[in-house]
């Protein structure tokens, strides 16, 4: 449970940061005013740091987990957040020239900004459960494919989604390059399907034990918000 809580804390911190005026300057999040709009930018920044710190605290105190596993989970989480994860992905996203961005650029941004946390979430849980390297490799494949599918779906929702069901404003990323704008909606949908197929197939060594993870693929494909 502890790794899941930690990932959620990191995720929440990243959303607070993402909405800041210096980042995406988003007015709403999950159907409600963004944190910085209610409590101010400084409080939002401090809250984000606090959430991150709490995440590592939770991992360090994780019950029923070996010390070695706690270290490994903490490392996975740090990699997802730090210079090889969300932070560098966000930096690349902010500095990208929409007119010159390529598929490789997009992948590099999303792999770090979104995919890294997917990978950390899945691997963290698996490490806590004592998974071996082969299983971790399969789960990493699952998470990478699922993460990219999630991001492309996010781009598609921004292009086609209904603001009432999304809980945030649509079209906010229209000026930015993303998979949906580069590939077009039909090809992006197709790519989402194929990525989810690959994600599901990567779970095959786990059989029915991976049913919950497989359901996530369905959630990603059917998400409307």
């Amino acid at each position, binding site marked *: 449970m502890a790794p899941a809580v930690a990932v959620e804390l990191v995720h929440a911190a990243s959303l607070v940061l993402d909405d800041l005026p210096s980042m995406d300057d988003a007015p709403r999040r999950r159907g409600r005013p963004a944190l910085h709009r209610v409590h101010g930018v400084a409080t939002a920044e401090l809250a984000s740091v606090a959430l991150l710190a709490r995440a590592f605290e939770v991992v360090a105190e994780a019950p029923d987990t070996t010390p070695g596993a706690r270290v490994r989970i903490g490392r996975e989480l740090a990699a997802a957040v730090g210079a090889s994860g969300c932070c560098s992905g966000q930096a690349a996203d902010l500095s990208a020239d929409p007119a010159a961005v390529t598929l490789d650029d997009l992948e590099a941004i999303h792999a770090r900004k979104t995919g890294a946390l997917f990978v950390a979430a899945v691997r963290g849980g698996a490490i806590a459960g004592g998974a071996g390297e082969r299983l971790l490799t399969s789960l990493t*494949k699952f998470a990478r494919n699922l993460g990219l599918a999630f991001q492309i779906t996010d781009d598609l929702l921004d292009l086609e989604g209904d603001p009432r069901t999304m809980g945030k404003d649509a079209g906010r990323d229209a000026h930015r390059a993303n998979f949906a704008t580069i590939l077009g909606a039909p090809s992006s949908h197709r790519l989402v399907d*194929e990525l989810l197929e690959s994600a599901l*197939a990567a779970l095959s060594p786990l059989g029915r034990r991976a049913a919950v993870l497989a359901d996530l693929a369905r959630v990603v494909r059917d998400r409307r918000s």
Partner: protein
Amino acid sequence: MTERPTLDEARARLKELGYLDARVDRLLFRPVFAGRGGAFLPAILIGAFAAALAAVAAVEASETGFASSPLSVLVLFLFVFVGNLVPAALLAAVLGAAAERSRRPGLDATLAALAAAGVIFGLWITGTYGLARELSLRSLIWGIPVAASALFLAAAVRLGFLARALAASGSLPGRQARRVFAAAAAVGLLAAILLFATRREPPAAEAPRVSPRKVPTIVLAVDGLDLDGAGKDEGAARQLSAGAIGWWPSAPASPPELWTNLATGASPAAHGVRALARVRPAGSPLALRPPFGTSWLLRGIGPRVGLVANAPVSGADRRRPDFWEVSASAGIPSLSVGWWAAAPWPGATVVENRMILARAKSGVEADRIAIGIFAADVGNGFGVGTVYLPGCDIERDDPRALGEARRGIETLLAEWIARARRSDCVLVVLAADSHPRTPGALGRIVVFDGDASPRSVRIRPEDAAPSILARSGVPAARDLGGAPVAALFAAGSVETLTVASWGPRVVPAAAARPESDREYLEKLRSLGYLK
């Protein structure tokens, strides 16, 4: 913005970057999310398609000139395709239930796919093996499209199975090696080659060696003659009680089926005549029998859209020779008047049923015409002569006409029984009813052979033809359903030699006679045969 990559380019690049790295069946994912019910739809359609292709391949290998009529091919294909949709759907339902409970979906899906492909190969191989008289290279060439369709079916079944298993469990196996299916197709083709190559052709027809008989064999075939019920024909019953009687329990059948059983010594499955009317692709000799539940389609809609036509049963539908055809082939001048599914035959004088009925307005008149033709011709040196009399069957609901028909029969019986008593002929009376009304009614063969004493033995309807032929000096065929019943005839008069087979009946495809067919069908309706 840089130039837009295509989907293929994006896919390729993402693969290089480590995504899309699983070996999966691309067609699998969509059906799962599209809904559980749709998962087997492609398998059902491809299954019906493959079965139809296998049927066409088998028929093409056996029916000379079948493929030269594209309409025939199309109709047969559509016919089998539609007919197989229901069984395919039922099998899919079974597979779906199995998939949802499967603990090893990958393995089970592969086994189900192999079984489905095996069914298609089985249909093709057994169909071709059973129908074709000669297995040529062309028979094997048909194996290529059949194998391709079986492979498609295997893939569709496997995907459907996996999709249903995935929908139920969320567990998706990786892609199996396609070589399994390719190997299965190769095994199927190899099995076909081996079976076809080692197939023993049916025994060649031996030229019947005839032991000449001094007197002709006369066969009077009387349909609908009631010899058992409360209103039975007392006069005929009395006349026939003086003969040697072979009997069998009556069972309802169409008149052509019953009387062809008696005339060929073979079962309907062997001789192929079952109904009064068949459905034919326009201009084709091929006759189709609608599978369960599809009659409305073929008989109801087919003729309206011009794909098929209803046609009366004919000699072209019969695959085994009638007894007069065998005797004629053996060199015995033979006469046949009025039988169902009769056709012209070398060495025989054949007056078809339709020719009699075309001139008759009633059953009584049909009998009178048939008897007239028979009486005029039978004295011309025939060794085997037969006449079929439908009057009692047609007039069964009209007491006055039935009485008249019975009087005609009694007169005829009296005449021929008297001749038999004088040893001018061997008389065989076939009295059977295709619509028995009395429980426990019997069909009978009654023999008057010189001074042989009356007796009664149980026989099979299929024993009639070989008995008639054996008494006429023609060896019976061992591949028949029936055998000669010597007890019915004078001691030592029945030919004891046998031959392996009288061979298949090979008849050139008859030219379609749509005008004549329509008239005949109308006549059958007016006489009460067809509703």
